[in-house]
């Protein structure tokens, strides 16, 4: 029997579609399930109260605040270094061995397992610098972890500023730094912002790097300083899912929903900025 190529194609395309649905449908179901089962838990009390009765009731306020501290701390550290590193790569780096090594280092930094970041943070910040398990240690660890994201997106943003703008500025007698500062950087801001927000989302959701550098199992108060321990939302979800028996499922789903909302909200903002940027491009 002669094989009909068009029937083969139809069968093949059906399987391709099936594979795609196998990925996309569960994503949708997961989100829907979390919203559906988590939403009933979301009350003002849940968001604003400390956990009570061994985390079986009460709220998640300290964990939300802890995560906000960690995210801000990590961005404070990673943003300046990341943007300057991106400027180096897009404006100063020549095509040589050093540049290749830097690029390789960034790829590797992005690939280091998150739990190894946790080990590193423990060894360097907690033990060696004696910061202890603290917001400072956790923020620095998360900051190094999100550095590759910020560098990569910022570099793309800087490189998308047309080369001719740089030539014009230089031809007017502006120095290289003036050109970067007044022409290149301002036009790359939306792209850099996108990268920053993606980094924020990543920092907010990670658990392994903060396990031994900051996260408190149960701390029903707000941290007092950056040398204080803090609860964090992802770790809290881990704790009430696996370490504490008999937690009402509603509370677990509610915590998952709050975490997911925070992370997805940041991603959404990044996506909107990116989309606006594409439309608004003037050159």
């Amino acid at each position: 029997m002669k094989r009909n190529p068009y029937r083969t194609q139809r069968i093949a395309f059906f399987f391709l579609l099936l594979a795609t649905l196998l990925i996309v449908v569960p994503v949708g179901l997961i989100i829907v399930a979390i919203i559906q089962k988590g939403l009933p838990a979301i009350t003002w009390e849940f968001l604003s109260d400390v956990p009570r009765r061994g985390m079986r009731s009460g709220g998640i306020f300290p964990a939300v605040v802890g995560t906000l501290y960690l995210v801000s701390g990590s961005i404070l550290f990673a943003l300046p270094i990341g943007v300057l590193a991106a400027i180096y790569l897009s404006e100063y780096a020549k095509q040589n061995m050093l540049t290749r090594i830097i690029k390789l280092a960034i790829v590797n930094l992005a690939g280091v397992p998150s739990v190894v970041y946790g080990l590193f943070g423990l060894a360097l910040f907690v033990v060696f610098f004696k910061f202890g398990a603290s917001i400072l240690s956790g923020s620095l660890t998360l900051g190094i972890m999100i550095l590759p994201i910020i560098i990569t997106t910022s570099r793309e943003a800087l490189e998308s500023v047309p080369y001719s703008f740089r030539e014009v500025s230089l031809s007017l007698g502006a120095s290289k730094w003036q050109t970067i500062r007044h022409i290149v950087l301002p036009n790359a801001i939306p792209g850099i912002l996108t990268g920053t927000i993606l980094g924020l989302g990543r920092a907010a959701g990670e658990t392994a790097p903060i396990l031994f550098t900051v996260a408190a199992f149960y701390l029903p108060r707000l941290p007092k300083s950056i040398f204080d321990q803090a609860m964090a939302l992802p770790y809290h979800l881990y704790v009430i899912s696996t370490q504490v028996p008999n937690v009402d499922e509603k509370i677990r789903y509610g915590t998952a929903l709050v975490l997911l909302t925070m992370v997805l909200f940041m991603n959404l903002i990044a996506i909107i900025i990116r989309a606006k940027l594409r439309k608004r491009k003037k050159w």
Partner: protein
Amino acid sequence: MVKFDIQNLSIWFKEAQALKDVTMQVEAHEILSVIGPSNSGKTTFLRTLNRLNDLELSLRMQGFVYFEGKDIRTMDVELVRKKMGMVFALPLPLPLSIFDNVAYGVRMHGEHNKKKIIQAVQEALQQAYIWDEVKDRLSESAFKLSGGQQQRLCIARTLAVGPEVILFDEPCSGLDPISTAKVEETMLKLKEQYTIVLVTNNVKQAARVGDRTAFFLMGELIELEKTDKIFTSPAQARTNDYISGKFG
């Protein structure tokens, strides 16, 4: 008076030679047109004069360019570019307002006095004959101007910095005939105060505005003569062939 004295200038991009042993002078207050087919080295020549070629890492240079007797490579590069303003082939406004486009260079050279900046911007726009068209919309984006207006804005931006020489790199290649005429008119008026080097692929434009015309071919300077002479009785047969359109 000689503004530029160019001695035995040769330039290579990696292995390819872009300019071959060019020796010539540019006089003060003249419009020197540089013509030639594409890849003849005209633009490379022009970008040597304000050291914009320094940005090309693969470039190698031999010979000398003296500006008023000084080797430009020994001068401060930002000063060189301040003195040698450049207008590019396409109108390239910066993504700023009309006012800020012109004020940009002034500010970069350290002027922070608001009144002086405003004055410099107005003067430059007047000199470039675009003041009347933009004076009521200075805060609008420069991209809202027409192509010809944008190009004259770019001229004003160059003038605002206070150059001595203006380098035009095929400034009308993207413009319609009416805008071209306006830009040319501007150039003719500017030569009273400035020295102008005009690279153009439009032979007729060279004939219209140039005091002297240089013909480049494959990196060599073939002929440099008064414009009337070069267009009526060129010394070289190749010049005649190019001008009359036999190749190019």
